[in-house]
């Protein structure tokens, strides 16, 4: 394995030898994340860590800007040919780390591989094919009008088809995606991105070096070498920054925000995030939850603002819906509705004045303060006579319980992979349907076919204004129905030394565009 990587690095060095290193890239950045990428194969897993790697060593066709707009990357321009077809023009003269040049055959290779990938195939389901027009023009075709085509194109990071084709010395397919065990792609990488991987010790450290032939000559980035160390323990990560051991850390735990603010050498950047934290109320397990009045009572009993202020220390944005601001479905009129009197009143109307007992489950190491949130919610429910039997579990044990929907109320956090509202509904509130994946995480067994139909309609509506209206209506109806109890969107935080200008490269998706990072 090491030999292979070494040989690969060696060949890279040879390939790039004649070209002078870009003059301004001279700085070194030491960064610490809570985890390092699980694999170098960006199609093996859909996770935050892998997407961060994708943005370092690869480039997408288009990428999100800070204000959730699209910015051309490897695709220079695009136009709708008809309702179901989008034509892209590929940037010319882009080189892979291996020295190969990017053409549409690499895009096709990548598209086919995404369709194979267990983790990505769901996102690419609406696509029916790819048409190669010439070396730099291609079309993406969907089976129905697809409003999220560009959202999805942010997941297409072209792979070097030549590099990933053929067989390794021991006769394995280089392009194979393997979930476990060693594949060629999980240990070797060739993309078009700003950084090449020069060494990697899984779980210990990873080194990147600026790719000398990087196509984006306008990028202000001046970091030549990046050393990524995973530091899982929050306190240690913060200490590493404060002691000057590293230049950039993420995530920053809420308990240490003040400590970093006070430190004169460090800078803190926070942002309201897009990951919603919510409780489901299981209607199949608890008869009372079938009654909308009881669900509303629970919604009135939970004090989102209190949780955000006291437990999250202001490090969260209280939520009354799934879609965060900036998403099409975000409905400004929906506000948290904490009102205990009203809640008690509703319980009385529903005939549950004396309350009932339920079980509640929450993870204790998955989301920020997840177990404390659950404890607070349990205490709040006691005020409307709902007695809660709370159980918190480490995430490894929690998810199997969640899959079995074994608690009456269960906590989950969700981030929409497509950065679009519909993704929330499809996974969290759709009627559960085995096979299609709809409602896969709907641990409340809430089911309203009308809402599902409305979302389905929105999903083939390419007129943004119309689609926005539909999705906002969905939020309104879910709110009125109290289909679930939204709590807050978890904020994001990063911290760096003062001379590391992270603010411009950060975004709400939490993929810092490190290629553009400037270190003074």
């Amino acid at each position, binding site marked *: 394995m090491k030999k292979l990587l070494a040989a690969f690095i060696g060949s890279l060095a040879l390939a790039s030898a004649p070209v002078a290193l870009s003059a301004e890239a001279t700085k070194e950045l030491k960064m*610490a994340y809570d985890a390092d990428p*699980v*694999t170098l194969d960006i199609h093996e*897993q*859909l*996770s935050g860590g892998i997407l961060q790697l994708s943005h370092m060593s690869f480039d997408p066709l288009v990428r999100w800007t800070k204000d959730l707009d699209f910015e051309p990357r490897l695709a220079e321009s695009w136009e709708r040919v008809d309702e179901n077809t989008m034509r892209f023009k590929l940037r010319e003269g882009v080189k892979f780390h291996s020295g190969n040049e990017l053409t549409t055959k690499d895009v096709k290779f990548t598209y086919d591989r995404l369709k194979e990938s*267990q*983790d990505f195939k*769901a*996102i690419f389901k609406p696509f029916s094919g790819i048409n190669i027009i010439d070396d730099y023009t291609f079309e993406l075709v969907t089976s129905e009008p697809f409003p999220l085509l560009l959202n999805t194109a942010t997941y297409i990071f072209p792979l070097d088809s030549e590099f990933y084709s053929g067989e390794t010395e021991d006769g394995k397919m280089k392009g194979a995606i*393997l*979930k*476990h*065990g*060693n594949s060629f792609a*999980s240990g070797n990488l060739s993309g078009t991105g700003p950084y090449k991987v020069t060494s990697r*010790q*899984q*779980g*210990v*450290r990873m080194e990147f070096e600026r790719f000398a032939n990087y196509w984006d000559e306008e990028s202000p980035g001046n970091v030549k070498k990046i050393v990524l*160390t*995973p*530091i*899982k*323990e929050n*306190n*240690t990560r913060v*200490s*590493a920054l*404060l*002691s*000057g*051991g590293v230049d950039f850390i993420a995530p920053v735990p809420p308990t240490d925000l003040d400590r970093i603010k006070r430190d004169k050498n460090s800078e803190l950047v926070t942002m309201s995030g897009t990951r919603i934290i919510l409780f489901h109320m299981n209607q199949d397990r608890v008869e009372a939850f079938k009654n909308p009045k009881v669900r509303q009572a629970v919604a009135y009993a939970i004090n989102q603002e209190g949780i955000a202020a006291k437990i999250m220390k202001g490090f969260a944005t209280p939520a009354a819906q799934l879609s965060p601001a900036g998403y099409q479905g975000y409905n400004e009129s929906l506000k948290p509705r904490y009102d205990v009197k009203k809640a008690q009143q509703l319980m009385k109307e529903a005939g549950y004045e004396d309350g009932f007992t339920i079980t509640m489950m929450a993870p204790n*190491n998955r989301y920020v303060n997840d177990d404390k949130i659950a404890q607070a919610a349990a205490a709040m429910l006691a005020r409307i006579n709902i007695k809660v039997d709370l159980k918190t579990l*480490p*995430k*490894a*044990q*929690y*998810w*199997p319980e969640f*899959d079995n929907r074994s608690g009456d109320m269960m906590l989950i956090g*969700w981030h929409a*992979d497509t950065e679009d509202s519909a993704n929330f509904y499809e*996974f969290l509130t759709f009627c559960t349907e*085995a*096979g299609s*994946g709809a409602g*896969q*995480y709907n641990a409340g067994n809430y089911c309203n076919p009308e809402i599902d139909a409305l979302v389905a309609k929105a999903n083939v509506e390419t007129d943004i204004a119309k689609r926005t209206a539909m999705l906002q209506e969905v939020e309104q109806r879910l709110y009125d129905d109290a289909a679930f109890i939204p709590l807050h969107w978890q904020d994001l935080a990063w911290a760096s030394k003062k001379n590391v200008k992270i603010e411009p490269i950060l975004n709400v998706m939490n993929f810092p565009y490190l290629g553009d990072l400037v270190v003074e």
Partner: protein
Amino acid sequence: MLAFLVQRISQAVLVMFVISVIAFAIQDGLGDPLQEMVGMSVSMEEREALREELGLNDSMVVQYLRFAGKAIQGDLGNSYFYGKPTLTVIAEHLPATLELVIGASLIIMLLSVPIGVYAAIRPQAWLAKFFMGVSTVGISIPVFLTAIVLIQIYSIGITVEWFPVDSGWGQWLNGALSTDGGMPSYGRGDDLKHLFGTWNSGFFSELGLMHLVLPCVSLASIMLPLFIRLIRAEMMEVLQSDYIRYARAKGLSSARINFLHALKNTMLPVITVGGVQVGVMVAYTILTETVFQWPGVGLMFLEAITRSDIPLIVAYLMVVGLIFVITNTLVDLVYGLVNPTVKLTGKKA
């Protein structure tokens, strides 16, 4: 000697068999390894297919037999997370842990013997009382707290402003109590020297040694008070014994009595406890390694648990079991050397 070793090896096999059975039996409680392997939006069908592929749907007995069949040939399976044989993964992480343990053991040995002996010979001296007091405090502070305090003082640095800054003495006191920090607070550093196999050592470079200091001191802080107290107590007891009194009566120099005759017998139980504790340290570096992001087996094990990386968990437990058996065997052998009256099994009296 041979019979003794044979007996120990068969014990080791038994221990590892029992550990593997227990580890297998509890694996259901460790969670679902798939959760760490696939994204949230992967469908149930895809998960089911992967589970089938990994053999997770077979009954526990079938899974165990498959595991045992391979284990006999020295193959403890592949780690889900690392995608490599578990023994390779452990071999890559073990040197870091061993260096930590060696460093901590050196600190313990160099400090506990002189302090313990001194406290036994001069129990009334204020310095001895001071040491004993500090060791009581030390034994009751949990290791992660020690580690965090050490990081704050020596890595980040503290600025003390308790005393008036406008007076000379206040400034001096503030300055004396403040620290600059600067010690590495995580990891092993960039400058490791390759020794052999998977062993890259931090003992041979300044940067590597700097990285070792805080973790080793933290790890030593739990065991050091224990050893000081043990040595002191043993030594005091030995000093009361007849042969020491006789030696005194005979007019031997007190240095000779204390350091040759008494110390030798004092060390007997210390070796036993020490040997066992080294094994314990290897197994329980978990906390220290977590706080310092020390890439050793303790941290690896902890992460394997959060990821439900069951093959790695099972392999780690078996390796630790083996380490315990080996250290105990070595202790028995050394004990035989120090105290010739002790007989190993099978040796004729």
